[in-house]
Structure formats: C-alpha cells, structure tokens
C-alpha cells in the first residue's frame, strides 16, 4: 500500500532518491542540539494558539462599555481590544488557557533562541560555511523580540499601554526624523488617531510571523544542505557526521520532545499566571501602574534607560535626547550589529578561512569565550538594572546608591569577566580530564585491610561511542545467503 502510493508519487515527482537520503540524514547526539528544537516547537505553539486568539480578539481602540462576566469592570469604558481580551480570559472556553499558553510560549521561544545562540557561539558552530545561518538566526531573534513587544501591547491594558507610550517617545528621540517616524506610525501626536492597535495587530499576526516562517524554512533548509556540526569523537572527522538517523531514531526522539515542550508550555499556562490584564485595568494615558515591568526580553532596554545619566544635549537649535537615544536606540543597534557581524569579524581577526564542521570546546578558544561571556555579563547586568527600585526596596538602601552601583557595575564587571573567563579557559586547557565522562570505581576493603579499586562497567550508552560508525543500514532479521552480495548490498525481490 505504502509502496504503491510511493511509486505513484515517484513516477510524477521523483522523490525516492532524495527522500531516502533525507531519511538517512544523520543527527549528532548531543543534548545541546535540542535547544533549537525548543525554539522551533514553541514557535509552532505560538502559531497554533495565536490563530485561536485571532478568532476572538478585536483589534480596535474604539471605546465600549464593558458588559462581560468579570464583575469589577462592569460598566467601565474600555477599548474593544481590552474588552475582547478580557472576554478571551473569562467568557471563551479554554480562552484563558490559550492566552496564557501563547504568552508563555513567547517567553520560552525567545529564551530558547537566546540559549541556542549561546551554544552556537561558544562552540564556534557559526564558522564557515555556516555564517549565513547565523545571520538568519539573529534575524529571527530580532523579529521575535519585536513581535513579542507588539503582542503584549495588543490587550491595551495599563501596563502595556505605558510600554507603547515609552516606545513612542523612543522613536521621537531619533535625531532629524524621529518625530516624523512617530507621527507616521501612530497617525499623529501620542496617542495618535486610534490606528496603532490595528497596525500592531496586522504586523503581529501576519507580517512578522510570515517573515519568521520564511526565515525558519531557510534556517532548516541550510541545515539540511550543510549538515550538522559535531563535537570531535571517535570516527568523527571534518568530512562526516556521526549520530543517529532521521528515521526512525531521531524522528521518535524529536516528536516526543515536541510533545513534551508543548506539555511544559500548557502546564505553565495553567498553573503560572501570566499577564493578568484584568488586574492592571484598561489603559488611560493619564494613569500609571506602579508595577511597570516589561517582559523579560525587553528588560535590558528598560534597564539601560534607567541607569543612563540625564544627558540631554541642546545645540545648533535642536534638542538631542541622548538620555533616550543612546540607551534605547544606539545601544541595541550596536549589540545587534555586533551579533550579525560576529562570524565575519572573527574570521577577519583570526584570518581563518577554512571550513569547520567539528565544534570547538569553549576553553580551547579562550578569547572568543571570554568575549562572549563579557557581552553576556553586560546584557545581564543591564537587565538586572531594570529592577533598581525592587532591589532598593529589598536591600533597604537608597535608590540613588543602587543606581550609582549599577552605573559602575555595567562597565567594570564585563571587563573583569573577560579576564577571569580567559584565565579559567587557560587553566582548564592544562587539565587533561576536564569534561570527560568519569567511570565510577568501586572501592573494596580486603580482609587483610587493603583497599582495592575496580572500575565499574561503562554505561551501555558509552559503549556505543567506542564502536566504529557505519552508514545507516536497513535492519533485517538475517540475511538470506542468496540475497547477500559480497559488498554488503542486498538484492531486493520484486
């Protein structure tokens, strides 16, 4: 039956040869290769739950009187966007689950991209020939962050509305064209003419997701074409890939993993409340909530804005709001340009133009590892700076001291991190057994009072690593002699 339909398709499209190669595609077995899969599967969850949300969400700033089942809001004037999101949460069956799953999936999506990117960076997987895929990946991160911001702006609640207000002012801070960009995007002076919610909506549900889907296809296409990188090991060279085959081993593992990722997102969605917009209330431009904290992936920008000194510059008949432009436009601009350019920069610095299919151990590239750790520390510290007020309250110190501490820390700590990391890498290089899997030993005491150590048998999985790898075979019970040929080739009866 399967054979017959395959023949039908193959007669018309000729898929058997390529398909077989695809089924035999080898995936290296290393846990760190699953990080990208988390990103992929949470994006799938985003698409699925997002489509559900579009069926109920109304992208409109029009004011209506709330009549739904959430009593504290009854009779209040709210926007249709806000009312419909409240409706999604209380009046649509499974709506709250889907909304919270969408939000959790977004957080996990961006988190896993970041960690995935770190693994690619620290192992040098971005080197020739994979620079393009690195660029595609960074683009997806950038678009993902943007889409996350647009998404949590959609409910039009007090917290996210404040975020939109801040975004407007950030646009305004751009020299020369800033106010034009802000006016064009919002249709006027803040809060604009009500067009911003429908605009954010269409960008959020169609334009950016479509681009991400395209990039994702390119990302995976390049992956298949260029094949995976792998860590050095027995039988592994620059000219092969060792691991388990697409079908059936990898397919089973990754399908299971997809279900488990989805399960995690839905469990979080049910048990860890996220973005309870009914508690924040509807957005009004003259109101403010005291718990203004953006989603985590925007935290670094918020932190940068907080610790920046108030360096507005007035000159040549113009105002240069550097206290906004530097931390909120230039800083992320530099960070992302550095991300995009890194593979090319590194090739230039090391003059290394060779193909690389075997991965580095981070300690063997101390400079790269130190540079990465240093940038990570900078971003992490700026991120922490987005809770200066919380920290001041918690440690009961004046806000002023926390602020000044952070201003010093964000400069000193990254530099320190660079040298410390570099030193750690150097030390580890000298230590032979670092990172090797340790075999447990059994210590026995003989009647004579002597201690003996015996190595325990290796874990069965480790045994596999000792075997010489072979091309993916067809599994059969036994080879009937009349079908076997000298070269390990099977004759097929038809």
């Amino acid at each position, binding site marked *: 039956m399967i054979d017959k339909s395959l023949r039908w398709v193959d007669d018309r499209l000729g898929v058997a040869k390529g398909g077989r190669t695809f089924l035999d595609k080898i995936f290296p077995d290393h846990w760190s290769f699953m990080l990208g899969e988390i990103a992929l599967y949470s994006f799938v969850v985003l698409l699925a739950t997002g489509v559900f949300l579009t069926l109920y969400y109304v992208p409109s700033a029009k004011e209506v009187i709330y009549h739904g089942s959430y009593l504290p809001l009854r009779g209040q004037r709210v926007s249709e966007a806000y009312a419909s999101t409240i409706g999604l949460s209380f009046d649509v069956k499974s709506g709250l689950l889907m909304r919270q799953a969408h939000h959790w999936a977004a957080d996990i999506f961006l988190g896993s991209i970041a960690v995935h990117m770190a693994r690619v960076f620290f192992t040098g997987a971005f080197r020739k020939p994979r620079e393009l895929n690195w660029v595609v990946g960074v683009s997806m991160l950038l678009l993902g962050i943007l889409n996350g911001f647009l998404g949590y702006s959609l409910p039009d609640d007090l917290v996210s509305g404040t975020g939109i207000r801040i975004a407007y002012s950030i646009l305004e801070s751009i020299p020369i064209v800033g106010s034009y960009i802000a*006016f064009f995007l919002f249709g006027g002076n803040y809060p604009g003419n009500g067009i911003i919610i429908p605009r954010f909506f269409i960008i959020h549900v169609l334009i950016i997701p479509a681009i991400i889907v395209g990039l994702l296809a390119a990302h995976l296409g390049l992956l298949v074409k260029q094949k995976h990188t792998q860590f050095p090991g027995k039988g592994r060279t620059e000219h092969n890939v060792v691991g388990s085959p697409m079908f059936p*081993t990898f397919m089973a593992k990754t399908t299971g993993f997809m279900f488990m990722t989805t399960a995690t997102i839905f469990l979080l969605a049910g048990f860890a409340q996220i973005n309870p917009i009914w508690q924040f209330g509807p957005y009004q431009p003259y109101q*403010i909530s005291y718990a203004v904290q953006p989603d985590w992936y925007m935290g670094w920008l918020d932190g940068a804005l907080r610790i920046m000194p108030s360096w507005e510059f007035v000159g040549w008949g113009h105002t240069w709001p550097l206290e906004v432009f530097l931390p909120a436009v230039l800083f992320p601009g530099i960070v992302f340009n550095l991300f995009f350019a890194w593979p090319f920069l590194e090739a230039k610095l090391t003059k290394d133009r060779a193909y690389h299919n075997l991965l580095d151990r981070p300690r063997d590239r101390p400079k790269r590892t130190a540079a990465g750790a240093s940038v990570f520390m900078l971003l992490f510290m700026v991120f922490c700076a987005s809770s200066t007020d919380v920290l001041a309250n918690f440690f009961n110190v004046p806000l002023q001291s926390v602020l000044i501490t952070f201003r010093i820390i964000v400069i000193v700590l990254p530099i320190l991190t660079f040298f410390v990391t570099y030193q750690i890498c150097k030390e580890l290089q000298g230590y032979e057994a670092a990172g090797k899997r340790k075999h447990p030993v059994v210590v026995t005491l003989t009647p004579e009072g002597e201690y003996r150590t015996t190595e325990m048998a290796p874990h069965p999985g480790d045994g596999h690593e000792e075997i010489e790898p072979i091309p993916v075979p067809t599994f059969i019970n036994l080879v009937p002699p009349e079908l076997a040929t000298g070269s390990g080739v099977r004759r097929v009866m038809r």
Partner: protein
Amino acid sequence: MSDESPQLTGALPVAALDDPHLQPYAAHPERVNAVAVLSMVVGFLGFIGFGITFWISDQVQWEAATLGVGLFGLGFGVAAWGKYLMPQGPFVEERHDFHSTEAERDAMSAAVLERGGIVVKRRKVLGGLFALGAGTFGVVAAFPLIRSLGPKPGRALFTTNWKKDSLLVSLEGRPVKVSDLDVGGVLTVFPKGFEGSSPDQTILIRLADIAPGEPPFPLAPPGRSDWTVRGYVAYSKMCTHLGCPVGLYQEQTQQLVCPCHQSIFNVVAGAIPEFGPAPRPLPQLPLKVDAQGFLRSQAGYDQPVGPGFWERP
C-alpha cells in the same frame, strides 16, 4: 510483482539485528519498554481527561493539568522509545563539498559577465533606461507606503490645548474650586473640553493654604512663584524622560516621582529633576482664580511638554 527475477536496486547496506550498531541504548530494554507503555497509557488517559474537563468545567488548572499530562505522557513514551529502544549506531554520513569546481565557477561568471555584458553593451540606452525606470519606480512606490501613514508633525508637539483662561477641570469635567483641595492634596486636571487628553494632562498640587492677598507661595528657582495661586501649583504630568504620567506625589518630601524609571522632581523648586534620567523640569502651568472661585490658567504652557525631540529648540 513477485514473479520478476531478483534484481539489484541500488546500494542498500544491511545489518543483521544482532549487529552491535542496532543494539538499544538501554541496559534493560524490557524495563524501558514497560515505562514507555505506562507513559503512553497515562498520556492517553490525560487526553480523555481533557475532553471531559472541557465539557463539564472550564477550569484553567484542570484543563492545563489534563492536557499537560496527556502531551507529556505521550511525548515521554515516544522519546523513551526513540532514545533507549531504537538502534543507536553510531551511524555515519559522508559530507560532500558543496562548492563547485573552478571550471564550473568560471563558466558561471562568464555566463553572467560576458553573455550579459555583451547584451547590455550593445544596447546601452535600453539598459540605462531600464535601470532608470526601475529605480524611479522603487522611489515613488515608497511614497504611498510611507507618506500616507500619518500626518506630518508640524507644530503639534509644541502646543497643548491649554490657552489663556482655560478652566481647570477634573477627568469627569468638574471645574476645580479653590476650596477643593486640602494642603498636600493632588488632582489630575485638563483644560475644559479636553478631559482625558494625553498631552494636556496636568498635575495640580496644593502646597499651602494661602489667604487671598497674601504673597504667593515662594517657589525656589527656577520656579515661578507668581504662577502659583493660593498655594496651588500645576505642572505638566508628562514625564520629560519618556512621557509616563508622573503619578506619585510624596507629600513629606514634596517630590513627584515617575514610576517608569524613577525620575524625581522637586515640586517646590519648579519641578527640577533631582534624580533619575529625566533631563528637564516639568513645564509649569501659570494659575489664577476667577471671580467665581474656580481655578483657571493665566496662559498656556510656555514650552513643549513631555519628552525631548529634534525640532525642540
């Protein structure tokens, strides 16, 4: 089908089931098998549970729990099957260079440069005109895309609806009487007719109870004491940092705090920023009392309100 003679259909390497490459990862495959079976059964029950929950109660925890158990059970079972029971190899696949040979590269660039070059060189005018046309199209096509989006800023960022003699009203549109606020009281006010408008939002604070005819409340420089009346002072409520409403008045220290990035403004010193990223004082609205005892503005703001922008002189 089967009456044809056996034929060779291509390289299909084989391995017998006792080949070490086909051995499962698990030391005790039967135990893993039992766990996977159990896990998938639990998963199946989870899905059934979700179906039932959906119909009988729409409770988010139950929905999540049942769905989560279903997905996790099924997923864990399949993953365990794949990881511990399926052949682990190691298997190998050769990489092939994907770059072309030098000759192929030369042929390609020759095709572009020579073939294309000759065609274009022969008809330079056509080539030039096409480039010109396509370029112009690119530029004019952007006009509607960009210019239609919204109005030009014009003077919009420089003005508010506060004019000479504007009546101060609350959000509900109620005019503010001199006797309305106690010392330490605050109220968000708008010019009458523009209740709730973002750029007009103004914070009215009563600093002291000063009798009519007495000298005005002494604001420290750069404040304007004669812009206060009867101990009332009013500032734009839009933070000069990024435009958040400066919503928190601390009476003891007489400071206005912006909760967004913790800028602090000194109310008795013309709202200069004492702390945080805000670069400028909050603009002050000059106040007066009319014959009926209602608060009005002497004039509009003397400068743009809110965050900085390029056109601001």
